């Protein structure tokens, strides 16, 4: 068998982080994003998922009734993924989205004002508290938004839209940097 160079090319791998006094935009190294699907009415599913996935590794974000994203900073091997699937099936099915979604971190004192240029969600800290997550439109692109800190948000965007989203975010931040 010939020698092949096998390397990952995540979306946005050629983007330089944006830094500035008002806003910082960056993309973390690829980790794991698992889409957990239960029956919509399964009230205990979230607890079940939390107990099966290590909570210090995965953080669980609601997507829709019966659906969550479990996000981890480190990649997951296919074998490990299969093991998790087996632990959860049939009550919860896992679908790997680690390559299908791209993580973007936006933070800084002006981050709320900046995101208000994209989403109609009221991001006031009293309304959208730390840990809140929602799927929404940012500009014309769907994305999943999580508040990870007072001035810090994580955006999960479909990989194919990542570059478009990045460019939009950079434009939205220009005023503040």
């Amino acid at each position, binding site marked *: *068998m010939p020698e092949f160079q096998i390397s990952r*090319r995540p979306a946005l791998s050629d983007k330089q982080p944006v830094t500035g006094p008002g806003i910082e935009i960056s993309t973390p190294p690829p980790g794991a994003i698992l889409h957990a699907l239960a*029956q919509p009415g399964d009230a205990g599913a979230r607890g079940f998922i939390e107990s099966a996935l290590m909570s210090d590794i995965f953080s669980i974000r609601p997507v829709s009734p019966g659906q969550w994203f479990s996000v981890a900073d480190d990649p997951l091997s296919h074998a490990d993924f299969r093991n998790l699937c087996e632990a959860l099936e049939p009550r919860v099915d896992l*679908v790997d989205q*680690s390559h*299908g979604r791209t993580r973007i971190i936006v933070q800084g004192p002006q981050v709320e004002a900046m995101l208000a240029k994209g*989403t109609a969600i009221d991001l*006031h800290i009293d309304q959208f508290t730390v840990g809140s997550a929602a799927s929404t439109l940012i*500009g014309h692109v769907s994305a999943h938004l999580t508040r990870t800190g007072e001035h810090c948000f994580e955006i999960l965007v479909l990989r194919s839209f990542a570059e478009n989203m990045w460019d939009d975010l950079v434009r939205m931040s220009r005023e503040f*940097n």
Partner: protein
Amino acid sequence: MTAFRLPHGGLIDRSRPLSFSFDGKSMTGFAGDTLASALLANGRILVGRSFKYHRPRGILTAGSAEPNALVTVNTGGRTEPNTLATMQELHEGLRAASQNRWPSLAFDIGALNGLLSPFLGAGFYYKTFMWPAAFWEKLYEPLIRRAAGLGRASHDADPDDYEKCWAHCDLLVIGAGATGLAAALTAGRAGARVIVVDEHPVAGGGLLSETAIIGTQAAADFAASCATELQSMPNVRLLTRTTVFAWYDGNVFGAVERVQKHVGFPAPNLPVERLWRIAAKQALLATGAEERPLVFGGNDIPGVMMAGAMRRYLNCHGVAPGHRVAIFTTNDSGYGLARDLEAAGIVPQAIIDSRRDAIPDSYSGSARVVSGAVVSDACGRKSLSSISVLQNGKSEELKVDALAMSGGFSPVIHLACHRGGKPQWSDEHAAFLAPSSQKGLALAGAADGTAGLQACLEAGVSKAAALLGSLGFTAKPQALGPVEGDIAAGPAKPLWTIPGIREKAFVDFQNDVHRKDITLATREGYGHVELAKRYTTTGMATDQGKLSNVNAIGLLAEERGVSPADVGTTTFRPFYSPVSFGALAGATHGKHFMPARMSPLHEWAKKNGAEFVEAGLWYRSAWFARDGESGWRESVDREALNVRKNAGLCDVSTLGKIEITGADAAEFINRVYCNAFLKLPVGKARYGLMLREDGFIFDDGTTSRLEENRYFMTTTTAAAIATMNHLEFCAQVLWPGLDVRLASVTDQWAQMAVAGPKSRAILQQIIDDDISNDAFPYLAARDVSLFGGQVHGRLFRISFSGELAFELAVLADFGEATADALMQAGDTHGIQPYGVEALSVLRIEKGHVTHSEINGTAVPADLGFGRMASSAKADFIGKHMLSRDGLSARDRLQLVGVMPLDTTAYFRSGAHILAKDADATLENDQGHVTSSCYSPHTGSHIGLALVKGGSARHGEEILIWNALHGEYVPGRLCDPVFVDPANSRLSM
């Protein structure tokens, strides 16, 4: 008239002179001026020409209702026609030009129209220009079009940026006058989230022209300290230079902020305008009241001005309107102006008051008051020289160079009427008031018919407190004031018709609608307020009748002998004042009109020389040009030939991919496809056809069973999004009892078609599993491991090209490395990348359909899938409408192949099919070519076509008819499969 700058006073900054030009003439003003106040200060009275009669016009107002002082500012892509001089802030280097005049503002040929005015009355154009018929488009219409319109817009692209954003608040206060400031302070102090908006650069509204004292402060200082306090509160946002232009459902308000319209050189990191979408729990309209003009002869001559505007220029800009000033009023507002003029040393020549004995106690000035009198005519050409005052039947001539008028006040209720509510006429207020009790919105102050500063401040406080109460806040209303020295203008009897008029008396200034037009409209049967509007065009100009509508209604009421209540208003519509395309488009235009989707193999394609083509939101590789190739056709021919000879690699990542799990997944899939799926074994793929409920084909694709309860569905690129929505509909709405879970995984996988006789040999070099024909037969579908376990993938033995072929999906980030590896592994086998053009050639050669054929009007049988629509299944989406007569009629369009008789002949998609020797008529139309290409394997152009009863007509000679391009190609209908009809190449 000779307006001039007063030696002191006003809110302008005399230490910051600004130079600007008007019609090429340089002038200076000060920071704090508007273009209008600066023009006045320079004695520039004539600023524009009217629409129809080209009458000389001056500055009438000091705000957004201005109908006359429209100018063009800037040049090139920044050209802005129809800019209101009254709203444009002065800045260094501002260049403004007058409009609708030729050759110059002072000498305008168009003014000749005035002489013809007896023949140019309302609607005259509907009655003539009809003969000879051909002259309309050749002569009359071009003349009319050239004469019509105001400013000239640029065709150049705008170099500046725009943006949009959302905002949320408990209380939105619209208008930062006395009322709005009081309301905002009350709400802000109570801790509510407040947004206060005002269209002017400085908060204060009427306070800025006011000389009363509030508490211990002059009115303008009071406004400034309110604004300072508001700005200091973190829960309050004060937006000046921002106009709320509409009220939409869900209590969403549209507003536009002119971020950088007041600067000569916009900063590049800021937009010039910003669109706000404000979601407000409650909104308070504190939008004030618009002063009404009076309809006397010559009321449009430069020098005639609204009384409130005159007061604004005087007190706010330190500009006196003239030396000999008269005031014509129906209410007390004229007296406030008189007092302030006197304080500036200009004693009015007269105050002409339509009321008898109505001098307010608060007025102690020395002007002569002519009671129970009217101004019947104003005289002058390019500026005012005198007025005729009519009192007790006697007319008196007064020499004046400026005349202020006030016909009462119309509350600014526009926004409150944007959602269908109808304004109510109030005799008591002599005005239309907003419709009552609308959810989410209240009015206060002058907008609600309240007169007097003290009352407005109180109304602002109490309305805000009440609204906050409804939101669960406890507001402690704090009194603001007391107010001293206010001459409150309460309601007074309106004066619609003025006796003794000789000259034209204008109702709608900008559209040149005068009193007689209203009479004519009524006479001709257009007396309904909406018909009168449309027939005369009153209220249809850029100011949307802010000044004129109520006068027109009053006149119609008198004309028809009814009350204004019976006449009613026309409909208030967005936009409160006009909004630019730029602001409403934000950053979404041009290249950014729609988002762009990139395949994980985009960079791979790029480095292999791809030309890209837009496919929905995606960019797909169309072909891969090589050095020396003469054009795209040569590249495409090479790619297609190479697939059938060796192997090709095509990026198909854009296909929709859906993972379907759950205990009832099989049952679900069986119901959404028209063909059978229950018995699909694990490890197998199957072609599936989805219908709409009306029986027509919706989409096609393949679905593979990877595990007992895990399926992988692919859809076409075009219908991917619609299909996912549709499946979710089926799962959630139609059959919520089924345990089925859907996840879109389109972006998770980089997917490659590897097609051609060498494809297996190439793939086997990177795939760890055995993919020999026995181990991995046609339609096999399985998880695979690549590169010795380094990469996870899914392999499908399916073929769109008709060759031995596979589709390989790998985790997206590994897509490029995998494609590189395949090119490397395939090098000795002659692998080449191919694009969607070659893909299309290959599929047309095989008679495979796409959305060119699945065009929303085809049922399965039309495309040769008649037997797929399973009659064995009791139910599937689309089953129940399929049996209608028309869907099985014999002359339905059916899929066939089409070839030219002369193999060198060219034809294209969209050409129609006619029977040989038939006349070219619609009745003889037999169908059309849906897809076509040059087929390098048959050495001819070939096509797919939808032809009446086509499946029974193979072999028939026809004409491929394309009159649009003058291409008439004799051809023959044939089987739609041009290459390997036995499908022997699939299972090598």
